[in-house]
């Protein structure tokens, strides 16, 4: 499968990444190389095999839906770039 320049740009957009001109070409080549190698999964004798979604037996783990309050707001907001009034500040989303 050939990876086109448009595809790389589409994928980067989905992943919320901007690519520089030199990066587009580099990642296009890298992705192509890796996919060429990864294509061997299509030769594996997997007919009739189920998919594995986790390393151990898949089972649901339930717990009671109880509210636990994390009180250390200060240490959470310590990481914020530009906090205001105990909140994270972001650009306006709705005009």
């Amino acid at each position, binding site marked *: 499968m050939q990876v086109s320049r448009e595809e790389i740009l589409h994928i980067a957009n989905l992943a*919320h*990444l*901007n690519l520089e001109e030199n990066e587009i070409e580099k990642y296009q080549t890298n992705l192509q190389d890796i996919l060429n190698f*990864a294509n061997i999964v299509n030769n594996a004798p997997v007919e009739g095999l189920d998919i594995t*979604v986790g390393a151990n037996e898949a089972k649901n783990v339930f717990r009671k839906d109880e509210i636990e309050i994390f009180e250390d707001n200060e240490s*959470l907001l310590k990481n914020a770039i530009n906090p205001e009034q105990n909140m994270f500040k*972001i*650009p306006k989303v709705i005009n």
Partner: protein
Amino acid sequence: MNITEFTVHELQEKLKNKELTITEITKAYVDRINEKEKDVQAFVTTLTDEAISQAKDIQAKVESGEIKGDLAGIPIGIKDNLCTKGIKTTCSSKMLENFISPYNATVVEKINDENMIDLGKLNMDEFAMGGSTETSYFAKTRNPWNLTKVPGGSSGGSAAAVASNMVPWALGSDTGGSIRQPSSFCGVVGLKPTYGLVSRYGLVAFASSLDQIGPITKDVTDSAILLNLIAGHDKKDTTSVDMPKKDYLKALTGNIKGLKIAIPKEFFGEGINEEVKNKLYEAIETYKKLGAQVEEISLDVAQYALATYYIIACAEASSNLGRFDGIRYTYRTQEFKNLKELYKKSRSEGFGDEVKRRIILGTYVLSSGYYDAYYKKAQQVRTLVTNEFNKAFEKYDVILTPTSPTVAFGIGEKSNNPLEMYLADICTVSVNIAGLPGISIPCGVDSQGMPIGMQLIGNKFCEETILNAAYTFEQEIKFRENYKPEFKGGAK
């Protein structure tokens, strides 16, 4: 003998006999860090001042009887993707350069509960993506055996710090070999436990269905001691398994008579360095001498497992790393016009080259049109790999392979060729794909004096078997008595 050369169980013995104090031990490590860190660059954050004052405090509390327990006052180093409250956790990324976790990882909580002393946070490949610690945003860690070589990765800082005696032991994490391969490159012991044995709560996720935390130590006894501490169910990690606690130290009997060891011929084929192969053959002879039954088998899954690994790990990473958006606790770009631009610019400036490459690959294999051909197929291959290992463990107790196809390579040697770097994970990734335990122990050095690692793979939750097999071998060849890192090559 210098204090920092002792293993943890030796330090425990000396504390018990009052030959050493906690403050003396900590001071010795701090001195060692001050002496060697400039050459090795194993740490992202050192906590030497904090460690000294903590040691005094713990020493006093031990003397007054307020603190008991045989790990009190033992120093440790922690890989920088394990959350430590109040101390930076960077994942060696610009993205988390200033991140201070508001909580502790469960394993860190356990370390603190024992009153152990954290000497610092250890360097790694950015977000644990890499096999050389060269993708760290902060520094390239150097291999203590030869400073012009990489220490392996991604837990390269952890392995190099243990090998250079800057910490007595360390915690690492392993998604596709990230504990075992650097342990192999640095001549130390690295254990990747069975998936689900150790809680991942507070480990910054790379690929959640593959990641496990484990010990990097000077010898197998220390590995069992640290595993005893960190293993166990945790309600904060729903994938951690609820099963009775074991004492791994008790498993180290030094007797492996009748142990059935399988040698998968595909792991000794093309691409495995001759010197590595020959040293492994010597190890196999040692096992025979010790009374093990060794047989060659075919386990033709390595190539499939490697391709599957890169599809699954990158897919999970692209999803896990979606949370780094420039809003709450990550790097944020300086200028932006709207929210989307804030996301895109922050992520593009905050992530390094290798992380972006894997996000792109992961996003590609999960995207519409390619999901079935790559991701779904890889999940089926994952079943195939697991089944093949299950079949082997019906007949054998241990599978023996090299840990890495080569010894440590030169800094910069492979950093321009991502695929070549990925192919070097051929011996380790199957273990994560199948969720098995694996240990790497040194089995000798090559003609250049670089350590060679042997990997022992066990069945799920059979850590005792591989630990005892490793221990018995270690007692026989006495690697640590015969070889020591010499910091060749000097600082560049």
